């Protein structure tokens, strides 16, 4: 059977074979579907033939499952969008943090010069501490000396 006429459109015979569910091999049906997918003229002829033919009824209606699929697809799209947005924010923060860390030493203002008095303060504090400790040791030495003197005196 000739599926196409010389002008490249489907023959009436091919369309009738399709509508009447006549024997057509897989390649023929693929070529018909391929043509109907882009040719307005042949699709119109085909749907006009179907308008006069009894239509088939599917065993299961797609209405309920269609809305389930619409919902799951919408959810998947939303999830994907939020995941993309979260990844973009994370990336932006990482880039921002990286650029700040690199440029921080250059941006940090110079510290004010420490006055000379303050620079000497640790030394003075250290001297005072040393002095206090010396006095504390001397006090114990004095106490130790006072305790040993009577004994020495007693022995003597």
């Amino acid at each position: 059977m000739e599926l196409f006429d010389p002008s490249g459109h489907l023959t009436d015979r091919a369309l009738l074979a399709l509508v009447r569910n006549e024997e057509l091999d897989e390649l023929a049906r693929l070529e018909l579907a391929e043509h109907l997918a882009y040719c307005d003229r042949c699709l119109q002829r085909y749907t006009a033939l179907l308008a006069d033919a009894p239509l088939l009824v599917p065993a299961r209606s797609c209405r309920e499952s269609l809305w389930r699929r619409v919902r799951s697809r919408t959810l998947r799209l939303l999830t994907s969008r939020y995941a993309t947005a979260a990844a973009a924010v994370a990336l932006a923060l990482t880039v921002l943090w990286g650029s700040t860390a690199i440029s921080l030493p250059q941006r940090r203002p110079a510290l004010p010069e420490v006055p000379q008095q303050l620079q000497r303060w640790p030394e003075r504090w250290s001297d005072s501490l040393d002095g206090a400790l010396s006095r504390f040791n001397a006090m114990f030495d004095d106490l130790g000396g006072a305790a040993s003197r009577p004994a020495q005196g007693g022995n003597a």
Partner: protein
Amino acid sequence: MADWTKESFSRLVEQYERLVYTICFQLVRDAAAAEDLTQDTFLAAYLHRDTMPAGYERQWLGRIAANKAKDHLQSAWNRRTVLPGDEAMPPGLSPPTEEVAIAQSEAADIAALIDRMREPYRPVCRLCLLEERSPEEAALALGRPVKTIHTQLARGKRLLREQLERRERHGTV
């Protein structure tokens, strides 16, 4: 109809479900596959409902259904026609057997074979193989989608190879 609600789209599904199923079944000849393709058609229609031309719903849904059936048949065809071992090779390294066979033959023989090819392969092979036009140019010249030109060219080359092999076996064109 510009604003589609769930109710209005459900009415559209109810109105055209049998038509879409009939188109899918007549093309794929498998009830279960036709049911799945019907659902795929309405899902695609719902996702692109804003582009549905008012008053042409029948044609528009018929076009989507034919496209879904075509994709189904095309993938089934590809699964069956891939040679054993081809799938393991990277596409760039697999030997294009059609190209080799065609290159080895005389140009005049090829032209004669292409002239005797049937629609829809003859104009595609003539433009792409004889006139060395790109698939995009052939698509523009023939008013077919570029993807269709690619698949028709691949199938046309396969038909040519088969004819050349037959000619070698029998010694005639």
